[in-house]
């Protein structure tokens, strides 16, 4: 028996899927786009339950687990980090009925992609790596074990989501990190109890929750040198089926962890004509972990400065003024490093900017500061070759 919102239905309309981090997945979705029929659609309240919903939601076309954070080493060096796992479903659940019998162990409906990045703010460099694999033969997948720990893994990169803490591990030939994350607030459900609308139609939506403040501690290795680090991180988990709404060219997503123990998430969906899509919205989390949904009219983002990537020649904003009117919040956001661009030719094929930012400003006339992450997509031309 499926939950009411898990209606299995066919829909042909191109509607806006949501997703901050869908930024990068925008092209992933195109790359992996299949016939719409047969996938589950998000059309109502998500009724999220944990730890079950930390896991994979097979039947929905797209899903991601997104970690970003800022940490400091003992000697005062600051680093930003990102670890993202994407799941893309190739065909609807029923398609497996047509598989040969017996089917090969390699046969699967799921592809996993992952991006990892380090921003060495003191060293002024941004390193990133990517992985991809089919979800078969233990190469990638999501599993919940008997100790209620959900593991999302791709090859030897993983995120473990337990009742008490979370564990991230990624290693590349140039950098690695091994971090333990302890949530200080319960999961925040965005939109209407996790049902986060991204367009006019009811199915133009996703199920979306976040851990907005995760105390982070562990080690980070850069070019063979290992640092003990600690700081704060943010985690998003989201799944959906709907493709992007026509007219959207990209989005700017902000996840800000502020010094007054509040957090703010805002995303702005940019349209071809330069206007902002009405589906743009945000969530404010107070010190006690209560959330407040923010509509497009309740905030404004102004770009103050830009940086041109020498690699992709894309012009990215790197300094913003963010105003949240009901909270009397005026924030100045500036990237900690201009070049935090990712060119993911080996996995999603998307070029985007995902970077560590610093925040200063006021909230209700109180001075605040903070650290966060911003994601910018649609500024560079999407990669258009599978191989």
């Amino acid at each position, binding site marked *: 028996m499926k939950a009411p919102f898990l209606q299995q239905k066919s829909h042909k309309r191109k509607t806006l899927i949501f997703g901050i981090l869908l930024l990068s997945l925008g092209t992933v979705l195109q790359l992996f786009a299949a016939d719409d029929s047969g996938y589950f659609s998000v059309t109502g309240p998500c009724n999220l339950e944990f730890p079950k919903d930390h896991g994979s939601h097979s039947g929905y076309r797209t899903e991601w687990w997104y970690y970003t954070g800022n940490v400091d080493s003992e000697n005062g060096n600051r680093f930003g980090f990102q670890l993202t796992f994407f799941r893309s479903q190739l065909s609807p659940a029923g398609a497996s009925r047509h598989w040969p019998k017996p089917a090969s162990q390699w046969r699967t409906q799921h*592809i996993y992609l992952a991006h990892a990045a380090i921003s060495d703010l003191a060293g002024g460099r941004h390193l990133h790596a990517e992985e991809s694999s089919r979800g078969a033969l*233990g190469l990638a997948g999501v599993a919940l074990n008997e100790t209620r720990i959900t593991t999302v893994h791709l090859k030897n990169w993983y995120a473990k989501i337990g009742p008490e803490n979370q564990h991230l591990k990624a290693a590349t*030939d140039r950098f690695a990190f091994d971090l333990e994350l302890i949530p200080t607030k319960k999961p925040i459900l965005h939109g209407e109890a996790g049902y986060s609308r991204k367009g006019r139609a009811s199915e133009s939506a996703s199920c979306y929750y976040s851990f907005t403040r995760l105390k982070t501690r562990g080690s980070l290795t850069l070019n063979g040198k290992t640092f003990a680090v600690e700081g704060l991180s943010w985690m998003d988990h989201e799944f959906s089926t709907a493709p992007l709404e026509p007219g959207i060219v990209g989005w700017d997503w902000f996840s800000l962890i502020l010094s007054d123990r509040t957090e703010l998430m805002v995303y702005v969906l940019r349209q071809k004509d330069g206007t902002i899509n009405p589906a743009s919205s945000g969530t404010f989390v107070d010190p006690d972990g209560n959330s407040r949904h923010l509509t497009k009219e309740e905030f404004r983002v102004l770009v103050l400065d830009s940086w041109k990537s020498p690699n992709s020649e894309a012009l990215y904003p790197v300094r913003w003024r963010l105003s949240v009117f009901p909270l009397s919040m005026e924030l100045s956001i500036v990237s900690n490093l201009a070049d935090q661009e990712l060119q993911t030719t080996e996995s999603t094929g998307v070029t985007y900017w995902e970077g560590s930012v610093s925040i200063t400003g006021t909230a209700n006339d109180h001075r605040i500061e903070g650290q966060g992450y911003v994601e910018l997509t649609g500024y560079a031309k999407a990669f258009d070759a599978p191989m």
Partner: protein
Amino acid sequence: MRSLVFFLRLFSWFSLRHIGKHWFQAMLVLFGIALGAAVFTSVRLSVHASLRSFTSSMNHIAGRTEKVLARPGGFLPESLVSAIINHPSVRNASPMLSGYVQHFGADKEPFLLIGIDPILDRPFRSWQIAKGKPRKVGMWLDLLKEPYTLILGGALARQYGYAPGEKIKLEHSRQTVDFRIVGVLAPENLALAEGGRLALTDIATFQEFTGLYGKIDRIDLRLQPEQTAENFQNIVSTLPPGVIMSSPSERRESGQAMIRAYQLNLSILSFASLFVGMFLVYSLVALNAASRRHELAILRSTGASARLLFLIFLAQGTVFGLAGWLLAIPISSFLIKYLLHGVSQTISTLFVRVTVEQLSLNSWEIFLSFMVTIFISVLAAYLPAREAMQVSPKEALSIAEHSEQADKPTLRLAGLGIFFIVLVWPLSKLPGYAGVPLPGYIATLLLFTGFAMLSPWILEQLGKALAPKLRRLGGMPAYLAGRYIRGSGNRTAISVGALITAVALFVSLVIMIHSFRQTVQLWAYQTVSGDLFATTKMGEVNQFRYPLSPEVIRTLTTLDAPVDLVPNRRYFLNYGKFPYEFELLDVVTFLRYGSYVWLKGPSETAIHRLISGDGVIVSEVFSNRTGLTVGDLFRAQIETSLVELPILGVVRDYRTQGGVVFYAMPHFKRRFHDPKWGGVRFFLRNRNQNLDAAVVSLRREIIEKCGDQLGMISGKELRQSILKVFDETFAITTILLFIAFVIAALGITTTLAVLVLERTSQLNTLYAVGASFGQIRRMIFWESILMVIAGETAGFLCGLILSYLLVFVINRQSFGWTFLYGLDLKALVFSLPLIILTALMAALPAIRLVFRQPPAMLLRER
């Protein structure tokens, strides 16, 4: 600069005009050298095209692979992929399965189907779907999404006329399935492997199609940078038993080495044509030098230095080489059409599978052919040029038509020739180097040179001994011919030398091919015995990697027909870089009907020990190539087992791709692991019935019970096909031999022509003193008979020695095998007179030259 212009002018006046005046001889020489250069160039370009195709195919398939994990003779468990991919020293890993399949109902020419994980494989191999309609981003993902989809290579799509979206029915040993064509590969990178005759599919589809569930052929690896030996060891230590890590270059290099060895063999053979062509250049330049001594002396007396004369004659050789090489271009383009296909087919049959779509012009090969042609032409002109250099200015005052040629003492030359021939013996005992029979080739060259040096003495002796007898036999013309031949010197000898070379090549190749064929025939009837052979469909092209299913085995063992079964399993392995087959078979039943052609150790004890599973027997090729022989220990990793067994005997085997090691199948199963049946050969118990009809009936029963799952061939057909392959392989040799003959015949024509022209006034004087035209022509004819007989006799002797070199030295060093030596008397008895006849026919144009000009005119000129 001025001196160069002067030289060119002088060369043009002195040499080119003369050549132009005697254009007929010049054209013959040019044609000869061109033919030789064309054969040499076309053979090398053809083999090079195969080599290039093989190398590029291997490189494209290997892609950016640094190391390969595989299990010799077997498969890897697919579970190894996730273990190895997470190894800290491993950067990327990609599993692969590949095998040959065929298009159902089409030409049945198998093509390569590659099963990969397109995502994991991305860092290893590059390929693109060709632009066209329909085209959307991520079309390749259909391979993962949809079972039985593939991307077709361009050559296949063109051949069968398929477009994306259409279905293609493919056959494999297990089943026949419709595949949807997702796209066609753009002609680049991986798509160029196998000449574009390949298709890509998802690894899941490959397993489902072939039934290889849980198995993969190999895992390609890319390692983290700066790996140490310790890291490698660390990877190796984590591997399951029997899995080895090797470099992708190993298989490529072993294949390349085989093709290169073949290229060298053919080059040497084709060089023979060029070598014979060299005699032609020599004879014409030598004639010029000899017949124009008076003019040379005048040149010397008017101030030309000896060096200048030397250079003029050297330049003559160069011009012949250059013009011959240019003339070789159109001849090569014609020849290559025939050679390209034949050579690639031979290489596919003998060594490794190659698909040559088109000829690629290799600048090195063209440069090489140019240099070799020029070099041998200059070399041929060297001695005449030296002679020209020695002309004294005093000779200008001589009234004699020709001053006496300072003929080299024939005895001294013969002594040197015999010394060279004697050297052949110790050289034939030396080992080859890296599969190249260098001592054998040097021995061959010395043999030819030795006989060429011996030929003036032979002619002298022949003339001396035969002249009186010839008078009785053919009257005065024959006597005069004998006398002339006796004193004709080196110039005639050179032409005879060319004939010796051609005849020797002919005789030795006839003997070698005959010995080879007879031995192969014996081997085919004894070792490849059996009335019907059955294996999985496309078993051979897939190296028998897919064993028979238990159901099929059950059916085959319960047939109604009264037959004995000899099951077998063949593993294709490598001993170092040397490829060989490890063949398991039921030795007891096999020996009841067939036998081995023993070379070493055919004792009762050895056979008894083989039957008891106490050891292996190895083929001669395996023994020669690996150095292992009776009493040594054979050691190999075969699937999961490490096999260590003593070698009991060496047998002859002419399987084309390397050597063979035989072992008793039941004992392998007992001592190591179950190898499963790869194929079965059937022996009809009743040998007194109509065997052909019984085989047809047996085949029918198998098809009725097993369907079309098996590939079957009757023993008779198989043995015939082995001999057919043999004959086809030697077709190229025969062509080269024929061309060498044509050139040798040209040599006879040229030599006689120049002898006639040189003696025009002598002949006219003969006429003037009463000889008739007929007598003089008969005299020339007798001269040619003597030359041909001398050439053929010496050539026959030379050929006998050469045949020994070919059978016991060059073949052993090149291919590892020898044969039972046998003279093909019938072929020799029929063909040698035919050669005489052909050579005499070649003399006709020269005879016709006599008295082309009226004698009175010529005498008046003097």
